[in-house]
């Protein structure tokens, strides 16, 4: 089964307010984004709040444009661009956080978007837990994800946490098993 179909079918099974740990291999990464942002979100009329900690948000927009994905309803909480000398556009579309270690500010920026677009149904994507784990101790990251997922549940938002299979340690897997409602492996070798 195609990666996009597999992800969309899984998401369709989940009720709103659900959280999913999505393990993808490098080859499935772009198809996963297409499945979530383009197919699932469009089909369900969802706003997408995209937390980028791996690739700067401007680059992700570039990728989406190449893939032909409409970004009109995608809003970024960018934790990585501040660390790099890249041009930053300040708007609601791109909210910047000084560092991926400022986890409370990630919650606050997403809450800002949830409040601002409170009449919209939303999908929150964290891309990725692996890059967050580079910058944060797993203990504080677990605490963050636990509170964050619980908060998003109260907003009836879908939450998808991306984890690259090649970089997923047993500790990260245990953490995601604990905080999310369900998980899905696409591409690579299932564990």
């Amino acid at each position, binding site marked *: 089964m195609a990666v996009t179909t597999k992800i969309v079918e899984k998401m369709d099974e989940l009720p709103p307010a659900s959280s999913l740990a999505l393990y993808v291999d490098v080859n499935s990464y772009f198809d996963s984004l297409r499945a979530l942002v383009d197919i699932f979100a469009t089909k369900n009329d969802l706003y997408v709040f995209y937390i980028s900690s791996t690739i700067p948000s401007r680059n992700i927009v570039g990728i989406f444009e190449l893939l032909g994905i409409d970004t009109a309803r995608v809003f970024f909480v960018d934790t990585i661009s501040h660390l790099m000398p890249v041009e930053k556009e300040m708007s609601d579309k791109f909210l910047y956080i*000084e*560092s991926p*270690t*400022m*986890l*409370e*500010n990630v*919650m*606050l*920026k997403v*809450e*800002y978007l949830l*409040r*601002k677009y409170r009449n919209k149904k939303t999908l929150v994507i964290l891309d990725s837990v692996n890059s967050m784990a580079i910058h944060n*101790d797993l*203990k*504080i990251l677990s*605490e*963050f994800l636990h*509170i964050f997922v619980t908060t998003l549940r109260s907003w009836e938002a879908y939450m998808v946490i991306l984890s690259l299979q090649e970089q997923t340690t047993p500790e990260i897997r245990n953490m995601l098993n604990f905080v999310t409602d369900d998980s899905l492996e696409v591409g690579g070798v299932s564990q």
Partner: protein
Amino acid sequence: MASQTRERCMTGIEGLDYILNGGIPRGNTVLITGSCGTGKTTLSLEFLVHGALWGERSMYISVTEAPEKLVENMIIYEFFDRKLITEKKMILVDLQEIYVKLGLEKLEFTLEDVNVLVSQIVKMVKELDVKRLVIDSITSICYRLTSKEQIREFILHLGKELSDLGCTTFLVSELLPSAQGYSQYGVEEAIADGIILLGNMERRGDLLRTLQVIKMRGTTHSRAKYVLDLTSIGVLLAPLLKGGSVEVR
């Protein structure tokens, strides 16, 4: 025995009202304390704007900022409406003008001067039926008082009169980053009904703005520390993650 809960004055800052189990008990005098740049004025203005929007006349007595500048600070709020000012639902007062009117243009106040000042503030609150008051800052008024007894008398007298009028008051208190305790003179914190401490916290080189309710008479409340963000839709709060933070203030 039926439990008696005091009427609440919701701040309109959802996270803070949640921490306070529904808001500030009406009539309380609350010290909003912290060092510069921690969000004291912003938080106080939001408290007033929400009150004015809900039909509670609000007054801001400023020592340091001109009213025009304060309006400029408020127009960033998506929920702010200039009509609140023009229709006098929110009143901005320059304390210097009160000093001039009362002949209090001096560096040190006597106890009599203090009473004159309190009477004037109470008179304005009464005549205009003000339900929310912010004095920014109480520290600059206390600077003119010559003893802790005078400071004590001033805050006690003011708090009592305003409480009797059902006016919920924020007294903005400036702290030095190196200060111990919750107020400049050590007296304000003991007399106020509530203390909301705003600060800066360092964690691995990141500086986070924090808020903590230290005390609030008349309600149970969380005493945990929260991280705050100042946004165009108002102050937002998130729980502080426990990660070996160091207080900077």
